[in-house]
């Protein structure tokens, strides 16, 4: 058993800070790495140590395996935590860490290869009697093959990156005419996100629920699950809202799926924290979708209802310790919801909206947690993910959690860029969502209501007044001769905010 004293966090943004927080609680030193675009990022400032690893594009920095290993050796880190995305599911990286005697906080390279390659993962699951979605057993080489495949498993189909995850390199195809561009787009996205352009095909399940199970496995053969997360609220196959427990779940199904998740992990000798994603149809049939061999973005809701710090467990497992608890020790207390705050424009097809943050007011109060990394005056780089923070709430019941989330979203204000905050607030007020009656088509199906911003008073008069006062203030501060308007310093302060710009 090793004792980890120093961890290099091979990531950026909110997840880097999230990991470093636990490091601080465990008296472990945290090392940040950053690209040229991230010099001002908060994770650089939060860490004990920070090292530049390259240029802004991720393949020249956060995906540069040798550079990161070099820094880890230079600063004598015992372990590397990869976070999610970037190198978190890169077997070569895990292998290189091992070769250099650095602990990779995650499963073995062999397991990453097996589960990271969605095609091999499907094979392993089939062997372990975990149900899988019908689809191709191998990756496809060109569009022509797709036309062959759809003779067997009819449209609609999903084209997915074999190395994929997080909705990247994934395209839904309804019509034959869409196949060519979908394959090309999936390929190119897969190549830029994962450095591997192989894709495969899966039957598309209509009206699916995306429900995943969190598991923890130690090196001593103990595997437990920490219940489900309902992740069906998605746009562009990317999760937007997650909650636990799932409103669809029954105690029997939870028992069954939890058991399948544990079996799946055991089948591949999994170690560390992992997530088994399932698709569940309306008849409560479930299919293995993929396994994420890393920490998930939405892990905080599981932490909130179980009271378990998942990053701490990852570190303990990496040290070779046995799990501190057994399945029977765990239960879900209350209800937790997470909303992902994206820098994007919900009114304009969720187009990314990078830029400079002008002002932030973060929500506080009972049962509210935010995991973020941006601050006032921070310029969000164009090179990385548009997610800027996660808002997590807890309530005794689902209703209480929804009301609390609505309140927290009301408090959350970010200006200077466009964000999904108000859109999320409208979801919290949606009758179907409140009933818990939704699947992965929720956003598409409710687009009209969710875009509807009527019902708010027209306050353009107030905007006119604010702009007018601002104008008068500027005039009177530039020419003292103005008799029209008095700006008492005690009343209207000359605020330094302009200096941010």
């Amino acid at each position, binding site marked *: 058993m090793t004792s980890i004293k120093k961890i290099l966090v091979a990531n950026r943004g909110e997840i880097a800070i999230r990991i470093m927080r636990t490091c601080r609680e465990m008296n472990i030193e945290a090392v940040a790495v950053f690209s040229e675009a991230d010099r001002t990022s908060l994770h650089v400032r939060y860490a004990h140590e920070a090292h530049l690893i390259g240029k802004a594009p991720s393949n020249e920095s956060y995906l540069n395996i040798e550079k990161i290993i070099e820094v880890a050796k230079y600063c004598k880190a015992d372990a590397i935590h990869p976070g999610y995305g970037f190198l978190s599911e890169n077997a070569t990286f895990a292998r290189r860490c091992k070769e250099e005697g650095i602990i990779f906080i995650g499963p073995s390279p062999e397991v990453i290869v097996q589960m990271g390659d969605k095609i091999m993962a499907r094979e392993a699951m089939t062997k372990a009697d975990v149900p899988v979605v019908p689809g191709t057993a191998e990756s496809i080489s060109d569009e022509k093959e797709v036309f062959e495949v759809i003779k067997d498993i009819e449209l609609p189909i999903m084209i997915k990156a074999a190395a994929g995850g997080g909705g*990247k390199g994934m395209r839904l195809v309804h019509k034959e005419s869409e196949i060519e561009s979908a394959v090309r787009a999936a390929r190119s996205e897969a190549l830029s996100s994962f450095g591997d352009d192989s894709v495969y095909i899966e039957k598309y399940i209509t009206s699916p629920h995306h429900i995943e199970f969190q598991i923890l496995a130690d090196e001593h053969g103990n595997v437990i699950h920490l219940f489900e997360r309902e992740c069906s609220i998605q746009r562009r196959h990317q999760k937007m809202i997650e909650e636990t427990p799932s409103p669809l779940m029954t105690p029997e199904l939870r028992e069954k799926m939890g058991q399948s998740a544990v079996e799946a992990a055991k089948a591949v000798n999994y170690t560390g924290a992992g997530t088994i994603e399932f698709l569940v149809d309306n008849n409560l049939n479930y299919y293995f979708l993929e396994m994420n061999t890393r920490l998930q973005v939405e892990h905080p809701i599981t932490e909130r209802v179980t009271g378990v710090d998942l990053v701490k467990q990852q570190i303990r497992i990496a040290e070779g310790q046995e799990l501190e608890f057994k399945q029977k020790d765990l239960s879900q207390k209350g209800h937790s919801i997470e909303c992902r705050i994206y820098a994007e424009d919900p009114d304009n097809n969720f187009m990314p909206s990078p830029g400079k943050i002008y002002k932030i007011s973060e929500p506080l109060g009972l049962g509210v947690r935010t995991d973020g990394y941006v601050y006032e005056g921070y310029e969000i780089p164009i090179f990385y993910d548009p997610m800027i923070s996660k808002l997590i709430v807890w309530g005794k019941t689902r209703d209480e959690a929804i009301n609390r989330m609505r309140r927290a979203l009301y408090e959350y204000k970010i200006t200077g860029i466009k964000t999904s905050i108000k859109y999320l607030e409208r979801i919290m007020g949606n009758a179907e969502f409140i009933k818990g009656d939704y699947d992965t088509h929720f956003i598409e199906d409710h687009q009209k209501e969710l875009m509807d911003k009527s019902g708010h008073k027209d306050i353009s008069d107030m905007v006119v007044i604010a702009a007018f006062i601002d*104008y008068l203030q500027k005039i009177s501060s530039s020419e003292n001769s103005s008799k029209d308007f008095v700006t008492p310093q005690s009343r209207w302060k000359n605020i330094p905010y302009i200096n941010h710009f």
Partner: protein
Amino acid sequence: MAIEIKVGDRTAWVDLRGQDGNLLEIEVDGKIMKVDVMHTADGTFSILEGGHSYNIELVPHKKPKKYTAYSLYEEYDVEIIDAEARYLLDRGSGAFGSADKEISSPMPGKVVKVFVKEGDEVKNGQTAIVISAMKMESEYKVPVDGKVKKVNVKDGDTIEGNQVLIELE
């Protein structure tokens, strides 16, 4: 000092009628409103009108006299039209371009591919350029039938938000 302020599609005429500290009498489009305005130290305009509380934030643009205003639920483009701005507008050097003859991206990013070149005859809806930002690719289409006058960017260029990428005749 009365001026005009453009808020979204609305152009409002506004004047200060009276002031007692932070209590103001302001006329907006002929309507007189009594408001209590505080420009708080964190940069928000806190306005009380008839007991209702409003918080407005003004985020200045790079161009002077232009802002984005944020209320709780809405976002507005704001432009101050005072004597100077009007003079510039009348001379035709104002900020209003013929937006439908231009293709621009609202966000900063990188040019993945330009599909048109100068002199090309283009059709409404045809893909003109692909921009990538935050790992997302977006296609920009030609807004009207016409001819490409100028292409200001090439593949691989880094662009700013609202930069004019392609001009049409």
